[in-house]
């Protein structure tokens, strides 16, 4: 049990997927303008991340390793993730159209979300058992959503702050992300 706790804490706080491993920055900058769309995005990414963590682990364990075609890993993983995202997109368009509209262009971008593939690859590098891989994926998706929600909280306040003309928009978002990642650096000595 203790190991699981370490995985969760290290994934959410210490090497947070966005703020210290740099994975998943594109949607992080793009969607974090409004709290509602970032929550929706966090949910969608978490769903895809956990599901893809499971499938990629199974595929690797029962297909890639026994047949010793490890080099196919990237292609196989990305195929799984892309199909999963397409599936999620169809489900969301059918059952939650407002959320689908809010996410708009950023939904297909989840396929290119480095965080999803990054977590799958880290699962492989760390050679986790299925349970650990699941907790790891869940913890990272929680970390991603946490960073996204924190960011959108701050950016919503940015609307009425008077930022110099050229800093508005993405530059100020990057500087905020820098400050957040400095604060997350503080956790690195935790374990």
């Amino acid at each position: 049990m203790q190991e699981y706790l370490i995985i969760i804490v290290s994934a959410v706080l210490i090497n947070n997927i966005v703020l210290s491993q740099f994975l998943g920055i594109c949607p992080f900058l793009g969607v974090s303008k409004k709290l509602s769309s970032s929550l929706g995005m966090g949910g969608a990414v978490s769903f895809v991340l956990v599901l893809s963590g499971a499938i990629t682990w199974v595929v690797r364990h029962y297909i890639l390793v026994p047949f010793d075609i490890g080099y196919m890993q990237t292609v196989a993983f990305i195929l799984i993730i892309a199909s999963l995202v397409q599936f999620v997109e169809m489900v969301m368009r059918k059952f939650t159209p407002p959320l689908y509209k809010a996410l708009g262009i950023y939904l297909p971008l989840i396929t290119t979300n480095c965080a999803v593939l990054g977590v799958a690859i880290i699962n492989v590098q760390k050679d986790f058992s299925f349970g650990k891989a699941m907790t790891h994926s869940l913890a990272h998706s929680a970390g991603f959503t946490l960073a996204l929600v924190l960011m959108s909280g701050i950016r919503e306040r940015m609307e009425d702050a008077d930022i110099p003309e050229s800093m508005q928009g993405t530059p100020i978002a990057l500087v905020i992300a820098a400050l957040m990642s400095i604060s997350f650096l503080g956790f690195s000595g935790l374990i």
Partner: protein
Amino acid sequence: MSLMQEFTKGIIKENPLFRLVLGTCPALAVTTSVENGLGMGAAFTGVLLASNIAISLMRSIIPASVRIPAYVVIIASFVTMTDQLMHAFTPSLYKALGIFIPLIVVNCIILGRAEAFASRNSVLPSIMDALGMGLGFTIALGLVSAFREVLGAGSFLGIQILPESIPAILMILPPGGFITLGCLLALLNKLQKKYAW
């Protein structure tokens, strides 16, 4: 748009990193040294070129509803090939880039260009577009990594410039990446306001 315009638009007008703010994941993480940045830029351009050509060749036979998985599989196979070739022939660069070579697959620019451009235009414009975007991205990576290496490690392409004590190690750490890109974007906004209307 003439071919030349396709090429030049990727460098300044629609620079993938500075204007479209795509591909930030590798841009922030790999650019701790100029050599890594340029190495990543070169690998990226190679993959983008190959995938743009392949996708624009196949654009008529790809059914619309499975186009994203199809594009992504093509891109992934090119990346794996580059990954293998780099592992075999340029081990030092391969070691430096580490996890970020497989992550070229999920680089938003390649899928973005495939979706927005290669799937709608014929091969030649796609080649020019890929070269332009690749060059624009490499220049952007070079710029960011130059800033970070000089400020963070006090060296440029490995040659020590600033004395050992001065460099701010923060620039090499993740926050440094965010700050450098943020300030560069702000600078470009300022310049863009002054010169173009």
